């Protein structure tokens, strides 16, 4: 599942995911007709619309053995919100089946495939931002860190306040842009203080927010999706 942000704004992430998984011997399929998991509508309270989009998504992935999502919040949406959202619809059973087969990328690599050693696409220090939905939603802080610590070529430095929100929050970022930006500024100061060349995250939303702020300040720090970082030259 490439996700709407991944599809439109960060296609390289999907390309990296495809390459990574194929190198590990995984057959990668990309069901056509994907749009969005429905999270933007769901989180804003438009649940009828979200259910309509979710039901489509459930149908599209009916035949997949595992569904890998390079975004913690979208994986959370499918795993934890779909079953309740589609409870009173014909898609209910299929939604529950999908929830049980859907993984955020780092979780899939570490916990399903048992793969932890990758070559970094950049060298030097990297720091990691815990995306809220991956950390507190899917309760995952270890899988991405395992991958980052074992990276060949890059060194992980922990980010102070790494578990704090970057201020994205979907529509929150444009409903209360001033608050969102002030939360972001704090995050960016912490990132810059680590001296890392890259800030790594597992969610396109956070990368859009942090990348947008770093770009605006013309910072040297680059936002990088975990998939892009793991996608180094083959050994």
């Amino acid at each position: 599942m490439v996700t709407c942000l991944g599809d439109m704004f960060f296609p390289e992430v999907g390309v990296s995911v495809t390459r990574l998984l194929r190198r590990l011997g995984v057959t990668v399929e990309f069901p056509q007709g994907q749009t969005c998991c429905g999270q933007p509508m769901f989180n804003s309270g438009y649940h009828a619309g979200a259910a309509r989009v979710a039901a489509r998504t459930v149908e599209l992935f009916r035949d997949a053995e595992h569904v890998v999502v390079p975004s913690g919040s979208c994986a959370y949406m499918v795993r934890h919100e779909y079953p309740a959202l589609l409870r009173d619809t014909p898609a209910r059973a299929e939604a529950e089946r999908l929830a049980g087969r859907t993984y955020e990328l780092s979780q899939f690599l570490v916990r399903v495939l048992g793969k932890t050693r990758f070559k970094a696409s950049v060298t030097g220090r990297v720091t990691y931002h815990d995306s809220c939905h991956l950390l507190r939603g899917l309760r995952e802080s270890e899988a991405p860190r395992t991958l980052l610590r074992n990276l060949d070529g890059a060194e992980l430095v922990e980010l102070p306040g790494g578990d704090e929100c970057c201020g994205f929050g979907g529509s929150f970022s444009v409903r209360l842009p001033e608050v969102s930006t002030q939360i972001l500024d704090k995050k960016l100061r912490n990132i810059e203080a680590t001296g890392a060349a890259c800030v790594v995250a597992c969610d396109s939303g956070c990368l859009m927010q942090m990348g947008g702020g770093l770009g605006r300040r013309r910072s040297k720090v680059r936002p990088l999706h975990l998939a892009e970082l793991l996608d180094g030259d083959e050994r």
Partner: protein
Amino acid sequence: MSDTDLSVPFRQRAGSALGDKHLQEALTIATTKFIGLRREAFGEFPEGERLRDMAREIKEATLQHLDRYVDQLIDSVERLGGHVHYATTPEEARRVVLDIAARTGARLAVKSKSMASEEIHLNEALEAAGVIPIETDLGEYIIQLAHERPSHIIAPAIHKTKGQVADLFAKELGRQVAADPEELTRIARVELRQKFLDADLGITGANFAVADSGTVVLVTNEGNGRMVTSLPRVHVAVMGVEKVVPSMTDLMVFLQILAKSATGQKLSVYTTLVRGPRRAGELEGPDEFHLVLLDNGRIRQIAGPLREALYCLRCGACLNVCPVYRQIGGHAYGYTYPGPIGILLTAMLEGPGSVKDLAHASSLCGACADACPVRIDIPRMLVELRREVDEARIASWTERLAYRLMETILASPTLYRWSKPLARLLQRPFARDGRIRSVPLAFGEWTRTRDLPAVARQTFQERWPELQNPTATPGSSTATGEPCDRSRLAPESGHPRPKPDSRHPLQ
């Protein structure tokens, strides 16, 4: 008392808070300290997680049979010689307290910290009736001097720096006062001592009331709760009806996690257990004891979508960790209870229409739910409130139209596919090097402070046909020639972008 002006839109209230230097300084210092202390307290307490689960279970079970426990509490308190009053509305609760004051000829009331009394706007009512209320919790004392309202559930003056407090005291006393917390506390203590002795009425809240023993429990750090409950002739405790707990055993579960969540203390300095008025032979305690049980919309929510908000212990942990609260403080929210839990309580007390904007004052980051000692799923209920707002059609028509449009596009792969070339066409005047620095309409809210990535010249879906064949290596032109390459993502010189290779699986 200055209330937040609710005619000013929430976004603007929040904006003013962001620009308030003193507020920003005070909030950063205090919330950071609270977060660290809480983390430490639970870090040293391995049973903490289990006790949190237990506390939640006790709350759930108690609410199931709240009527029974309330009856039991009333019996217990009356058996001790106390009086219990049930108030459905804030007006009723105020009336009860004013009647007691009038009947007992009270002129001066000392108060220990109570959010329930804030909720019913008791101080103004007392003043109007000729009874002078004196707040005796240091933080409350400060904001009473400043004619403000609490901006935090347990640290009402959290928005003030020590310098501001010193200025406030100096103005009140007509002399210079050093910005030294110890000195400021000493001054307040001296000022308050005589008030305790002179007061006719002692007004408190209650952290808990134990059904089977009739014990009202106050958790404080300054000892003022003891003075307020033992020196005046009459003690009135005002408590939300959901705060009843079945037994002392249950109480112990809560006491072990409350202070840790609130201030990181193992226990608060004082845990005051009050059982009715002074009995024959006792030296201390009031002649009369009254417990006011406040409903104010709570009972209705036992079967409502905000049920879990009734588990709240008022520890304030969710405020301290909330990225929004940490930036804007409590006053911007505009109601008695600020922060994430405050939004839910406001919806409970004032109706969902009151939180049309506040329901969106959260990035749904989940830090609140993680910090909550009874694990209230605040983000889920915020989403629930947003749904209610949608279903009641009280959001603006432009917003509803935008989401309807989003739904139409996302439910149709064809429309979604065609939206991309359209977006590329529309963004052309604004995009440069894959970034958009300024754009009109709603997206302008984003680009005022942040760059927006442009829609890629080739989206992933559009690239899939060439990626589809695993043996056909996408050439370097694909990898590095990504036309909308986010230049800041381009590899540094010397570290060429990885060559895609899919022919040799690692395993």
